[in-house]
């Protein structure tokens, strides 16, 4: 039976809205957030500490995309890949080497960074995505270690004699060149964050996201219904690598350098903690986690060793005690602002309407009761 024939128009409308939320955007919330983000640097840069705040915001925009795309791979699709920082580094090194040592236009080399990163991810993914869990952990850690080895001991153009790339040219800001470099960097990072976050949100709602929910809830049934695990895993792996590589490239041009210290275990752990503490597998979790951890990182700068200890304990406690992380709390707190409560009601109302329709549709020959012989 087709859905649209057998249920009332009102229920169909509500279900459509719940299934495709991008058709009814919340313009109020979006435009107020947008205006706020656009005028923020103009306000902040008037204060002495504002420069640092803008820097922190740029870091937030870039790292939260890395955390979001890793969340997509690690938590949503269950690929235990620890190669995300290595992919970030691929993006950074590609654009860094091309623009610094080969004299490419930074914009051109930046455009190449995500492409090369995606290709690298597909090369890792093709042999390994059919394997599971522990194998993937090992192979991706191996990729991380081998890449670290290569950029430390490799050719001088790449290793910079062991110091990494220093003095990577900045992106040409065009019409914004009158301002300090923070301003164009801020807007570029903001655009990148918005586009990437929207794309990731779209994946959560798309058939691919639904397929992963189905795989999580009942793998056998999902595969039986024709969900091709390998193909969608490969797609997600490449998709997340694209944004991670671009984030790496943007970070390299913004900071003007990238060094081997990006491969430090603590960086990997930091991003992992952003995902876990924020909310493993949820859409908003990594964003909340990134904001929290970047804030803590700056707040607790003097306590660096204790910070690692606390981070480790926090990871374990969240995993054991509160597996869904902070996101549910934050989401409930902001529900009124984001006006999501109406949608939740709409969804359940749609569900009730659908149930009522199915109950009423007694003449339907596909209902189980009529299929049983009398």
């Amino acid at each position, binding site marked *: 039976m087709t859905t649209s024939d057998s249920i009332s128009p009102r229920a169909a409308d509500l279900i459509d809205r719940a299934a495709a939320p991008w058709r009814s955007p919340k313009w109020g919330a979006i435009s107020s957030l947008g205006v706020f983000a656009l005028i923020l640097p103009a306000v902040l840069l008037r204060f002495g500490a504002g420069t640092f705040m803008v820097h922190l915001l740029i870091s937030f925009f870039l790292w939260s995309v890395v955390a979001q795309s890793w969340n997509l791979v690690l938590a949503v699709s269950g690929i235990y890949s620890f190669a995300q920082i290595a992919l970030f580094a691929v993006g950074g090194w590609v654009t860094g080497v091309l623009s610094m040592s080969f004299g490419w236009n930074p914009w051109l080399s930046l455009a190449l960074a995500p492409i090369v990163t995606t290709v690298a991810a597909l090369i890792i993914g093709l042999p390994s995505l059919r*394997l599971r*869990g522990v194998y993937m*952990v090992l192979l991706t850690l*191996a990729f991380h*270690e081998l890449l670290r*080895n290569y950029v430390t001991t490799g050719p001088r153009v790449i290793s910079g004699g062991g110091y990494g790339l220093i003095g990577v040219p900045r992106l040409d800001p065009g019409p914004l060149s009158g301002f300090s470099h923070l301003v164009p960097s801020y807007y570029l990072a903001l655009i990148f964050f918005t586009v990437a976050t929207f794309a990731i949100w779209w994946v959560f709602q798309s058939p691919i996201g639904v397929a992963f929910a189905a795989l999580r809830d009942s793998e056998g049934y999902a595969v039986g219904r024709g969900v091709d695990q390998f193909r969608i895993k490969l797609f997600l792996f490449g998709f997340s690598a694209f944004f991670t590589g671009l984030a790496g490239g943007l970070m390299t041009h913004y900071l003007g350098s990238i060094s081997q210290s990006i491969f430090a275990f603590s960086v990997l752990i930091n991003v992992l903690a952003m995902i876990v503490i924020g909310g493993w597998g949820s859409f908003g979790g990594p964003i909340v986690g990134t904001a929290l951890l970047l804030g803590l990182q700056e707040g607790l700068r003097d306590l660096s060793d204790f910070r*690692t200890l606390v*981070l*480790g304990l926090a990871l374990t406690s969240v*995993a054991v005690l509160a597996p869904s992380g902070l996101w549910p709390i934050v989401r409930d707190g902001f529900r009124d602002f984001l006006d999501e409560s109406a949608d939740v009601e709409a969804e359940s109302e749609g569900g009730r309407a659908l149930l009522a329709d199915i109950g009423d549709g007694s003449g339907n020959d596909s209902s189980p009761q009529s299929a049983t012989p009398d």
Partner: protein
Amino acid sequence: MRLFWLPTSDETDMSQLLQAAWGGVLAGSVYGLMAIGLTLIWGAVRLLNLAHGALYVAGAYAAWIVIDLGMPLAVGIPAAVIAAGALGYGMHATIIRPMLGRPGWDSATIIATVGVAIALQAAILLVFGPRVKQIPAVIPGSTVISSVRISYQGLVIVLVAVVSLAALFFYLRSSRQGMAIRAISQHMDAAALMGVPVQRTYALVMVISAGLAGLAGVLLSSVLFLSPTSGFTPMIIALLVTIFGGLGSVKGTIVAAYLIGILESSVQVYLGGAWALPALFIFIIFMLIVRPSGLFGVPEARRL
């Protein structure tokens, strides 16, 4: 990991071969101790313990404290085993027991053990500082057999490791608890229905596995240096060994440990130390494509 020397140019082929073999046996013994712990936990509890390297370091530091107090290494070794075993029991009580049977076991336990690894490493760094330490040899000195230098400490390591592995093998095969562990690895629900105490057996597996990691830590740290982060590479190699041997297979793990040890040692002798880890990784990737379930592993569609 570079366990020993690199060859000089005037050495003969024969002595190179002997050197590779001896280095392989030595490394393989220690990897066996590390990997058997990982494979036991994996087999019985279905837990990938990424804190194994931290337990290794914790054991070694426990031994270092004991030796620093003026006691011999003969006391330090049991101290390492006990300290690491106690930590293993702590992990059982705080992670495995509360989380058992919950949805999302795989990912949640990986995160939890990563958290334990970081916290333990940071705690050790805070207490002992970043400077490397060394654990003295049980018997100092060495002998030269056909131009291959064999330290007495190396012989002690191989002896302790082989005795421990053999004891563990017979313990698993013949004792009541060993049979309980094997029963749980094969089918947890059936074992529980037959009256095997599941929680107690899990605790036992964690303690044994952590104790072995501590033992490996103190033994290997008498050859290598000891620092808060020195457990990472042994853990990665132990992971390679467990995968190569077939996850959950004790016999496969022991065979794989010596094969990997000899492979690594040969690469070090013939190609140079820097190639050891990349060569192992490439070997394992190739191996996974050809035979995904390892040497002795049971082929299985779902793993972790």
